[in-house]
């Protein structure tokens, strides 16, 4: 007996299934990173707390709001294309790209501040984790922006419709993954002590 198409579709997340395999792999790597940070912290809690005090929580707040807002804009882009509004979809995607840019600029200023202070990967264990974890995430934000830009270009050319918009959902899923990772990274590195 064949399964109705609607039921089949409901068994899989939005977007191309391949991106979800990729997302799972990425999430797995970040999970290992997070656990490694938390267990390394046991060895020298004072060092990690002192390192945390040198970070700019205001910048981290701004970046969290930028990513959450960008994710919300991407949700609206998907909703727009589902309603057949491809111009609206493009506008929301461009707004999300703007939020990604805000994140990169703020994070860039943070890095510049630390590098000016002479901080490197080998300064201590805390900074090794801070720099490698946040830069790894930073690269994912850039990749997410490239994907969103490609989706926006195709949407602008009329490449998606209410009936066919898997590409928009695929790009959206990746962007939400970038947001999801930061939602754990932010409290873990900047707040929890």
């Amino acid at each position: 007996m064949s399964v109705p198409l609607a039921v089949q579709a409901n068994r899989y997340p939005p977007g191309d299934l391949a991106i979800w395999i990729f997302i799972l792999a990425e999430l797995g790597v970040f999970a290992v990173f997070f656990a490694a940070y938390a267990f390394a912290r046991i060895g020298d809690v004072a060092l990690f707390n002192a390192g945390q005090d040198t970070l700019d929580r205001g910048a981290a707040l701004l970046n969290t709001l930028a990513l959450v807002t960008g994710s919300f804009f991407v949700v609206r882009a998907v909703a727009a294309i589902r309603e057949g509004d491809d111009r609206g979809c493009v506008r929301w995607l461009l707004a999300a790209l703007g939020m990604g840019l805000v994140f990169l600029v703020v994070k860039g200023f943070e890095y510049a501040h630390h590098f000016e202070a002479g901080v490197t990967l080998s300064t201590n264990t805390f900074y090794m984790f801070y720099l490698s974890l946040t830069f790894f995430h930073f690269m994912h934000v850039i990749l997410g922006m490239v994907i969103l830009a490609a989706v926006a270009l195709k949407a602008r050319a009329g490449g998606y419709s209410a009936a066919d918009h898997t590409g928009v959902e695929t790009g959206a899923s990746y962007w939400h993954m970038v947001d999801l990772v930061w939602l754990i990274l932010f409290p873990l590195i900047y707040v929890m002590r």
Partner: protein
Amino acid sequence: MADPIPADLRDALSPGATRAPWLRPCTRVYLVLVGLTGVTFAIGAAGLGGLPLALGVLGLALVKGQLVGDWFMGLRGIRGPWRWVVALWLLVPGVLIGVAFTLASS
């Protein structure tokens, strides 16, 4: 025959009217995420620490992650194993981080 009800009034009375941008569920979820982010930041800015608070902040992060998975990534309406992929991902590092912070405080 012309429709006796003006188009704008018909739109306002239709079920679709509840889908106005500021009332969409995703907008409400977004506002909750912003609120929880503010709480997390306030705890950090106040320099508060200790195991209960650290675990509380971790709990807030897990709730935020689940909201993103359910409402933004669209997993809420999925049946089968993919429904729980984000929840499982949050659980594994969440438990490990919680255990590590508990060990660090003892």
